[in-house]
């Protein structure tokens, strides 16, 4: 059962091949026996899942089941789940049980999906390797000494290890696409404003966007149908019709112009990665797409701009974690100052503290113009690069990351080397564009990701291209050497 896609599982459920209780129980058993190898879950909600599954079976039997009724999913532990601990990978929220659901969680509940648990992640989504989680690192199912990528490493690893068919994730600077690439799955970051951020714990509000992770584009499209849409509770969510993303998956891509940014094939790119990506681009060409070299001249500025804007926003977003109302509070504070200082010193990990400090510095009197303002100007230039590019092309394609999965600790003492892993993914966040990663090959049995970047609200076109590619490739069907 665990090797089936979501679409196949839905057919199985609807045909009565198995019940939701059986399906849910199967994945729960796998998590129980196998996740000790991966550490991809922070919480497993066994009882809750089985209760939901029973209700789903009744609804399926009664014939009033919603679209994805009885199918299992797992949520990144950044999405608030009512009555279920939501830690955001941090000691700060180790004891936090939200009294509300994120809109995304609510949408999947309404679609009838069964929640297996909450997946591991870099602390407050700050990291590209899952090494910053308070709950310990997630291991890459393809190589146990390698990172799964981050920050949505738990969701990516759980899918790759067949512990869950699909998962939710979030992407602030590549946090869906990079782990999807490193774990050999399909992940999509929608246009900023397409998916509600309500109940999604904020890292950098102007960049954060929730999205689906799945085995293939078709499953991702099924999930996006549920996730996307306007939410009055999120002022940045966009009021705009949601198409049926599954309806256009099979469209012919002949005649489509695919932009290949030359800056994404620079000296920082691993030659083996380049080879796999070029091969995939060739396949698109085979299907009639036209490849066109383009330039995104400000690409090299995206990482520095991001590492000003994201920490600046984070420095304010994380101020609410002060030990006063919820979350971690230090033992026996002597006064208010002591409570603030020690609760935050003990509750946050090093990477989070580093980013809060960087962010506060960039916003300080006397530095604001040189850092924050300058970064916002660069952000505008990066957006303009894409606007110009999309005057000439329909979609942009290139590598998701420069390298395949690296070993634990490989970049531990060099934050800048770690940040450079996101060099191709960050620009889409700064511009607010939709982007996705899908498997396009292997280097030493380590997956390589192909990145697609679409124009605003053109998720359907990206999914179409991805699906067509997956019709003529099998990288996405490969599983790591596990049971």
């Amino acid at each position: 059962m665990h090797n089936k896609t979501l679409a196949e599982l839905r057919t199985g459920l609807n045909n009565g091949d198995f019940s939701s209780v059986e399906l849910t129980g199967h994945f729960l058993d796998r998590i129980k026996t196998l996740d000790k190898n991966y550490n991809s879950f922070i919480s497993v909600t066994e009882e809750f899942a089985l209760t939901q599954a029973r209700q789903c079976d009744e609804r399926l039997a009664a014939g009033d089941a919603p679209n994805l009724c009885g199918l299992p999913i797992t949520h990144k532990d950044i999405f608030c789940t009512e009555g279920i601990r939501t830690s955001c990978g941090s000691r700060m929220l180790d004891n936090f049980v939200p009294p509300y659901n994120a809109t995304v969680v609510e949408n999947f509940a309404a679609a009838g999906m069964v929640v297996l648990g909450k997946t591991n992640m870099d602390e407050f989504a700050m990291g590209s390797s899952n090494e910053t989680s308070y709950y310990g690192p997630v291991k890459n199912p393809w190589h146990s000494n390698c990172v799964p990528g981050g920050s949505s490493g738990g969701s990516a690893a759980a899918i790759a290890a067949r512990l869950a068919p699909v998962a939710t994730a979030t992407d602030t600077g590549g946090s869906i696409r990079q782990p999807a690439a490193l774990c050999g799955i399909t992940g999509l970051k929608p246009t900023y404003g397409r998916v509600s951020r309500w109940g999604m714990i904020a890292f950098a509000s102007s960049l954060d966007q929730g999205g689906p992770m799945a085995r293939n584009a078709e499953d991702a499209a099924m999930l996006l149908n549920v996730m996307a849409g306007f939410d009055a509770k999120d002022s940045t969510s966009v009021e705009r019709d949601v198409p049926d993303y599954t309806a256009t998956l099979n469209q012919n891509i002949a005649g489509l112009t695919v932009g290949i940014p030359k800056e994404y094939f620079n000296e920082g790119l691993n030659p083996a990665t380049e080879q796999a990506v070029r091969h995939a681009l060739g396949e698109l060409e085979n299907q009639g797409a036209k490849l066109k070299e383009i330039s995104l001249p400000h690409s090299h500025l995206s990482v520095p701009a991001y590492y000003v804007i994201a920490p600046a926003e984070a420095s304010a977003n994380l101020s609410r974690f002060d030990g006063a109302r919820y979350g971690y509070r230090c033992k026996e504070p002597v006064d208010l100052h002591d409570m603030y200082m020690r609760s935050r010193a003990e509750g946050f990990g090093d990477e989070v503290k580093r980013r809060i400090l960087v962010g506060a510095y960039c916003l300080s009197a006397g530095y604001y113009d040189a850092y924050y303002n300058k970064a916002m100007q660069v952000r505008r230039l990066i957006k303009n690069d894409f606007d110009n590019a999309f005057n000439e092309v329909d979609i942009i394609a290139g590598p998701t990351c420069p390298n395949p999965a690296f070993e634990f600790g490989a970049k531990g003492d060099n934050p800048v080397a770690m940040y450079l892993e996101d060099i191709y993914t960050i620009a889409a966040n700064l511009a607010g564009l939709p982007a996705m990663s899908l498997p396009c090959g292997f280097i030493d049995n380590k997956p390589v990701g192909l990145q697609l970047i679409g124009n605003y609200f053109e998720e359907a076109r990206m999914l179409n291209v991805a699906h067509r590619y997956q019709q003529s490739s099998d990288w996405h069907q490969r599983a790591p050497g596990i049971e």
Partner: protein
Amino acid sequence: MTWETVIGLEVHTQLATKTKIFSGASTQFGAEPNTQACAIDLAMPGTLPVLNEEALRMAVMFGLAIDADIGKISAFERKNYFYPDLPKGYQTTQLEKPIVLGGHVDIELADGSTKTIRIHHAHLEEDAGKSLHEDFHGMSGIDLNRAGTPLIEIVSEPDMNNADEALAFAKKLHGIVTSLNICDGIMAQGSMRFDVNVSVRQKGDELGTRTETKNLNSFRFMERAIKKEVERQIDLIEDGGKVLQETRLYDGDTDTARSMRSKEEANDYRYFPCPDLLPIEIDQAYIDAIKASLPELPEARHQRFMEQYQLSSYDAGVLGDDAATANFFETAVDHCGDAKLAANWVTGELAAKLNSQEMQIQQSPVSAEQLAALIKRISDNTVSNKMAREVFEAMWQGDGEGGNDPDAIIKARGLKQVSDSGAIETLVDEVIANSAKQVDNYRSADESKRPKMLGYFVGQIMKASKGQANPQQVNEILLTKLKELL
């Protein structure tokens, strides 16, 4: 030496929206602590703000009422600092792009002239919660009911030169926002709070160093705090010292002020645009629609009161500048039909009572309808003015027989005025008969001296009537009777 004082005001005005500026929680005053704070107000993880359009509309109303420009694009920023009554660790406010730009408020000075106080800008922001430092055994309690209440902070130019002008400005603002119905104006509940910036200089010199005294929550405290600060600064300089730029706190209970923090200790608030709230674009049609529906403002009402009720400019000002007073007065007139008497009572007896108790008219235990009922009893001669004052006192106390109902009080106290002319004639006759000496004096006195001599007779008659005779009738009958004796 001739000192000149320069004063600028920042006025935090709570907007009278039903719900908070960024959440659906109620803004009602006086609920149990933390019962009106939802997940957003508590800054629970993952929660997001959504602007209350009503707050925006009210801010635009204010801007239009003071002839200001409305920012076509206005934006929210985060002002970062840690405090337990600030749950997010930042206040959502406006800095670079406020909603109201410029404008002016005109005040009337003691000599009858008018002075224009310019407004620099007014911006929308959220209020913080309250820290409660008593009754928690050395700890502090936090009440977040107020957190997220919408405010406009109105920032004046430093155009005022003494406490009286600042007071007149503050009262005028109070009148404007209450007339617009965008603020309930109840000072005791913190609906309007003042920060005063004060500096002194020799006439003609550059501006002196200013201090800011924060969070003054009554007109009286503001006036006192300014006077005290001006005195302090002048004394300091005359003794050879220097005024330091600092933030000060004034304690109204002890009438003392102290330094809270110096310029060096000032926070770096690290303002930056709030990424959770998109900039607000306002189009002309929206502004025009609000402009067309603006309610009557104090100046217009002042004029109308003079014309409609034949009030003096002074009375029209006292009654018309403040919306709650104006409402009270007009409700009373509607119910009693006598504008002159209603004006006298509202500006006289009622105002004196409110002042002595430091109350606002909204808090008056005697309602406009009840006062009108009393005024009717004066008009129809049931009670004299003097009796009416006694009845009013009883209504104010409200705890005796009859509560706030004047008729019940009049009845319970047997205060009915005797207006039966036959009965009064009998009394007058009796007194004249028993006052042969005084009558003789009256007759022999010079014409011009006689009016002064009436007091004795009136006093005796009133005494005989146990104070219940209608004084006007007593006067008339007495004069007639005495005339007959001449």
